């Protein structure tokens, strides 16, 4: 869980950096973003990392299902009067729910962008690359899409808020000072990812 989760965190950073190209001036953004997408799909090293990514998502999900299955309650072990929630954060207890939202988002995200780019027919830009840029911009001009995207990114924010520090704990980071630092880095990382991923569609929705 921890290793796949941290790998996915690393991927989030790379993906966000790539997405920032969408914020360039329109003409430049189109050519550069499409060229970047073409480069990613053509590079063997990127392909290998992509497969590691798919495997990570699957393993992370399987592990989550296993953990939820293991902690399911029988009638005998369920409290009739339960106020235990005061002891922990809601997002720490609801990692599975947040994860399900993220998984649904990923399926839709793959269907909307990854599938048409890999297997669909897309118009070409001036440089002869598939015009993924226009597809992305069109999606981000749809209020419904931006709304759903924002919900998923907020789910990601809370998922990371717990997941980031929790991963380090699971890997055995027990030093009080460094555990504190990692918790702080986790909060900053979650905020940065949230602002970055939310900012791009909102900016495009408002400005285009």
């Amino acid at each position, binding site marked *: 869980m921890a290793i796949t989760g941290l790998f996915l965190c690393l991927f989030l950073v790379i993906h966000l950096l790539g997405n920032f190209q969408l914020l360039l001036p329109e003409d430049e953004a189109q050519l550069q973003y499409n060229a970047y997408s073409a480069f990613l799909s053509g590079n063997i090293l990127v392909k290998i990392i992509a497969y590691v990514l798919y495997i990570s998502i699957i393993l992370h999900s399987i592990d989550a299902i296993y*953990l939820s299955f*293991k*902690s399911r309650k*029988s009638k*005998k*072990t*369920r*409290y*009739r*009067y*339960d*106020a*235990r929630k*005061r*002891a*922990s*954060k809601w997002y*720490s*207890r609801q*990692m599975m729910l947040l994860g399900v939202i993220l998984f649904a988002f990923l399926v839709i995200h793959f269907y909307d962008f990854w599938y048409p780019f890999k297997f669909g027919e897309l118009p070409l830009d001036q440089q002869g690359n598939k015009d993924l840029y226009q597809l992305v911009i069109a999606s981000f001009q749809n209020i419904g899409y931006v709304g759903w995207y924002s919900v998923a990114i907020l789910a990601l924010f809370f998922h990371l808020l*717990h997941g980031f*520090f*929790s991963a*380090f*704990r*699971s*890997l*055995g*980071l*027990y*030093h*009080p000072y460094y*555990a504190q630092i990692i918790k702080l880095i986790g909060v900053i990382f979650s905020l940065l990812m949230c602002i970055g991923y939310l900012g791009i569609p909102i900016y495009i929705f408002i400005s285009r």
Partner: protein
Amino acid sequence: MKLQLKIWRQNNPDDLGRFRNYKLTELNPAMSFLEMLDTLNLQLIKNKEQPVEFDHDCREGICGQCGVMINGIAHGKPKNITTCQLHLREFKDGDTIVIEPFRAKAFPVLKDLKVDRSAFDTLIASGGYIGVETGQAPEANTTPVPQEIAEQAFDAAACIGCGACVATCKNESAALFVGAKISHLAALPQGKAEREKRVLNMVNRMDELEFGHCTNTEACQVECPQDISVLHIAKMNYEYLRAKLKK
């Protein structure tokens, strides 16, 4: 003061159990929670009813015997205390208090508020000790232990094994209990000799006993009477990975 009590009554482990309501008048706010239960039991015995069974021993927060869910919280609302350290002054006159046993697959209810926590003993027997020759107590200074290491070990050793961590955890995990033991013994020279064997055995046994998996919600430390740090769980994870890699 007066209190309404809603207490879980269950005749035996197979019984489905139910809440029963009781009313107590003429209570003193200086009474401890367990003294209040004693008062109730006296009343029940006088009325030729079955008294409420609950675990207790030292009544000074050391033995870890008393442990019930009070208004849905292990050991009641004040943080880092045991049930016997809870006093009626924490409640308002006329309050209703819901009292339930600790619930977990590994802690079956025996009767009323009494649960079988022998799974903790099984865990300790699987490695929560050091293998030394018995006989006379050795001279204390033969094995030097630096002060800060002794303090770290003692912080973990302060666990009284009450089971509030398991009762509070949404996954019913015993990670804080086992983590404290692993961390305590791995810190000291006497415990280092068996650290790999100990952590592997105890963690595996924890799974076998149907304790859940730790997902780091940190709820256990909040309700722990000794405020045992969740970082001991991280230390257990470290020791486990270290032992696995060494193997």
